[in-house]
């Protein structure tokens, strides 16, 4: 029943998992649940190295319920209920698809699955079921209902695991099943178009929701929905460059989210505050944390010198090569506006005026918090300078999935023959400019007047009082909602939709439940009525 096989695709995802788990091992964690974490790790290994659909499903389910029990240590009842209903629902659609595949091709093992003789109606059914599973796992709208609460309410360490690795299992399954098993020629293109647009829409909506968010972890949750939205969009293009772009972005996103979540976790660990409105001005207290966060922000927004830019660059070139102009415009719009919530994250925690006076009393951040962050920062910087280094690994995966490899021109250069850039040159130029500006500010710094205390800022006649909240920047998203389109996005939420579904089931259960409290006599009446009806139908 359990049979495994080492594949290039499996190696890459498993490598990411090992890196994340090992680095997170150092972070101090109140809920020491070794069994559940090892179960989760085993199930992830089981998913990535499965060689038949049943083993994949077993790993998928065990991951589902082991993370349920991990989240259940801190999350409240509604979140848990949302989490488990969606994840078990996703797992059951996956099981449904597996059973359909078994019905069509008569076996579960990947190598024996041949879709040539399968009627197209059945393939579409399989695709839709699998897409449902992947939408739930990667949090594509409207199935993201559970994502934000679960990520933000689970304990800080586990939300990093959730966002870095577990959301990637959806991507892995997408590549494995649509690229390797069903292969492109049997898939209907209109479905993929819908998937692409759903991905982009999700990222746009999630980005604006993130900007409007006041809590740090919820902001990061929305941002991971948006980033995975990009991956799903670029994957549905089904080209070799787009696959490489998706893989690249997966790697980048894993380490960005690892870095950001642990960074925020460190701040929460020392300040016990979640919301931007109660944080702020921690730059001078935790400078190293600030620098690491900036590295994370730059790659999250996809700005040039760091790794984020290389994956965004690949995504744009892939979209251009496939002539998806409109899609490219949408992706550009959403990743540009992504910068807003990146800045909000930096501003909310480190810049601006410290809101509560106790910032001085915050303890030092334990060194063990820095292990995953430094790992993330190092990888992001190396991928910024030598982006081509992991292209041969991706070409290995492309080959195993049956695509011809992408052009590889040395370690520094990344991109296809259509457009490419040289990582070394870019980081050199940006590095030079950065050093110049830094020198200029250092010169200015020793001539500037040091402020006596928190309130020593007077600006065009305003003299701040102690009770005024000077950290005005935390409410950055407020004025956005004045714009018509964004106001409509922010106000509507999937809560209403899913609430109606659950009340429907509740009322239905109310009715059927009354049946089960019949008196013995009415029960006798039901039995005899049922007998008479069947007798009449039979005798007629």
């Amino acid at each position, binding site marked *: 029943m359990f049979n495994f096989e080492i594949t290039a695709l499996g190696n890459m995802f498993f490598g990411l998992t090992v890196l994340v788990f090992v680095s997170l091992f150092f972070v101090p964690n109140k809920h020491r649940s070794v069994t559940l974490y090892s179960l989760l790790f085993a199930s992830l290994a089981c998913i990535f190295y499965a060689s038949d659909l049943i083993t994949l499903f077993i790993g998928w389910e065990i991951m589902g319920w082991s993370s349920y029990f991990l989240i259940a240590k801190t999350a409240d009842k509604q979140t848990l209920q949302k989490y488990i209903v969606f994840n078990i629902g996703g797992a059951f659609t996956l099981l449904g698809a597996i059973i359909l595949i078994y019905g069509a091709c008569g076996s579960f093992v990947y190598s024996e699955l041949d879709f040539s003789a399968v009627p197209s109606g059945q393939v579409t059914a399989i695709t839709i079921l699998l897409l449902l599973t992947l939408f739930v796992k990667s949090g594509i709208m409207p199935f993201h209902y559970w994502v934000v609460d679960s990520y933000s309410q689970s304990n800080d360490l586990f939300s990093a695991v959730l966002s870095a690795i577990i959301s990637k299992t959806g991507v892995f399954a997408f590549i494995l099943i649509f690229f390797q098993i069903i292969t492109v020629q049997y898939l209907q293109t209109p479905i993929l178009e819908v998937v692409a647009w759903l991905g982009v829409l999700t990222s746009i909506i999630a980005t604006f929701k993130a900007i409007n968010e006041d809590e740090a972890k919820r902001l990061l949750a929305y941002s991971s929905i948006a980033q995975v939205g990009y991956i799903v969009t670029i994957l549905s293009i089904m080209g070799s460059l787009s696959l490489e772009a998706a893989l690249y972005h997966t790697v980048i996103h894993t380490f960005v989210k690892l870095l950001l979540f642990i960074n925020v976790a460190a701040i929460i660990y020392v300040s016990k505050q979640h919301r931007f409105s109660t944080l702020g001005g921690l730059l001078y207290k935790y400078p190293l944390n600030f620098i690491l966060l900036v590295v994370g922000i730059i790659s999250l927004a996809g700005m040039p010198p760091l790794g984020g830019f290389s994956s965004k660059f690949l995504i744009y070139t892939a979209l251009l090569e496939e002539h998806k102009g409109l899609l490219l415009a949408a992706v550009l719009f959403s990743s540009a506006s992504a910068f807003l919530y990146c800045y909000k994250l930096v501003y909310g925690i480190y810049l601006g005026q410290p809101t509560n006076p106790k910032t001085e009393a915050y303890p030092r951040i334990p060194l063990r918090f820095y292990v995953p962050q430094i790992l993330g920062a190092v990888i992001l910087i190396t991928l910024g300078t030598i982006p081509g280094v992991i292209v041969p690994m991706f070409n290995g995966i492309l080959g195993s999935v049956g695509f011809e490899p992408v052009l590889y021109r040395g370690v520094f250069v990344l991109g296809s023959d259509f457009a490419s850039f040289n990582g070394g040159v870019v980081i050199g130029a940006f590095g030079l400019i950065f050093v110049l500006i830094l020198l200029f500010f250092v010169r200015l710094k020793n001539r500037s007047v040091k402020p006596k205390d928190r309130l020593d800022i007077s600006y065009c006649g305003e003299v701040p009082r102690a009770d005024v909240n000077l950290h005005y920047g935390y409410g950055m998203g407020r004025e956005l909602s004045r714009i018509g389109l964004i106001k409509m996005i922010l106000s509507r939420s999937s809560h209403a939709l899913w609430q109606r579904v659950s009340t429907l089931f509740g009322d239905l259960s109310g009715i059927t439940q009354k049946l089960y409290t019949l008196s013995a006599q009415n029960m006798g*009446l039901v039995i*005899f*009525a049922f007998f*008479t009806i069947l*007798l*009449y139908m039979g*005798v007629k």
Partner: protein
Amino acid sequence: MSLKKTVGLKTILTALLISFMSMLLLGVIMNAAYTHTSLGYDLLKINTISTQSANAVTSVVTYFRGLDTLGEVTILFLSIFGIGIGIERSDRMKTILGYDSTLLKIGTKVLFPLIVLFGLYIIAHGHLSPGGGFQGGVIIASGFLLMFLAYGDSYDLDHKVLSLFEALSGAGFILVGILAALAGGAFLGNMLPLGVLGKLFSSGILPIIYIFVGLKVAAEITVLVEYFIRTQDARDA
């Protein structure tokens, strides 16, 4: 309207439903021809050879379908035991249905042995004349009922003897079956000599089984009647 109050709409509806159902049932049953070949006639043919019992029904009940009777006796034991669980063995049980008229006392003193004798006769002649263990046992029990009615609280049953009696006869029934199986035949098979049809000591194992059954039924129905007549309060959990 008055009709609804006296008979009730629900009763009318149920009456209509059930009569429609019975009409359908009758329709189906009536136009089917009953079969003539059946298990019964085959058993009748071999009854004399295998059991030598004059009463074919008894030979079916105790021999050919002996297991049904075992099941039957278990059911009786089970329901009496179930009743016993429900009622506390408290000693201040008062007889509810007692008449202390001397005429009844004297009459019962005369009648009681006759009834018990008649019951025993019915049990013993199970394989010769109609009736058998069940009927005889209940007749004996009705004798005891008469004693309860006549003597009320003063007539006291010795429960130890009664339950011992019941246990032994039940166990005897099964042990006879097991002995038959050990002696090579099937469970409750007939390993004793069959004797001559019509004699008291004929048809091997049948009378023994019916005697065991009769005694057990007698003991149980007596206990049943005593539970009902004597119990005053149900035990509250």
